[in-house]
């Protein structure tokens, strides 16, 4: 089980702060995003503008990666701090 966190607009859309999901173990950033949108179709509207993070690091590139239990994914809508 992987914990998926929602912030800002994505949190408003989903209506909760996080969700536990079973992701495929061997995957890539783009597969994760597709999987999230399949599981939570309301997120499709913002899927082009969001970033993903894994264990507090941005997933910038679509490289192969392996998820393990306890990993923390997050949906990062466009940031606006400062």
């Amino acid at each position, binding site marked *: 089980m992987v914990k998926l966190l929602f912030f800002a607009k994505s949190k408003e859309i989903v209506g909760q702060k996080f969700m536990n999901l079973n992701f495929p173990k061997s995957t890539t950033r783009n597969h994760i995003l597709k999987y999230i949108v399949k599981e939570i179709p309301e997120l499709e509207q913002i899927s082009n503008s969001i970033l993903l993070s894994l264990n507090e690091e941005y997933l910038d590139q679509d490289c192969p990666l392996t998820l393990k239990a306890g990993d923390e994914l*997050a949906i990062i809508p466009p*940031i606006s701090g*400062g």
Partner: protein
Amino acid sequence: MDIVDVVEDKLKVDEITDSVSSPSCGAVSIFVGTTRNNFEGKQVVRLEYEAYYPMAKKKMLEVCASIRSQWDVENIAMIHRIGVVPVKEASIVIAISSPHRKESLEAVQYAIETVKAIVPVWKKEIYADDSASWKKNKE
């Protein structure tokens, strides 16, 4: 010393300045981001900030490390306020001390640019007509 934090309380510029000042330094440069009362003609009544706490702190520490790789500075403090921030109050204070003034002046400018680009914090503007909008920092 690097001090980074995400807090819900009002930010105190004096305390943050004192926390970075050092007897071996001749300069402290400070940037304070404050809440504006307008956006494209609409009246902003308040801002609400939220953060991905641990990642925000981690990214702020990365900004500190990046500053230190470029400038000779002594202490760095970056404190972001979240929750409701009323108009005129500070949402962020960045204070940097350095032996000579040039370093902290340049570093504080780099710091706010970089924080705005990489630290996962979100701002929602709430307008006088009860509408609201999640903002997006410019590239």
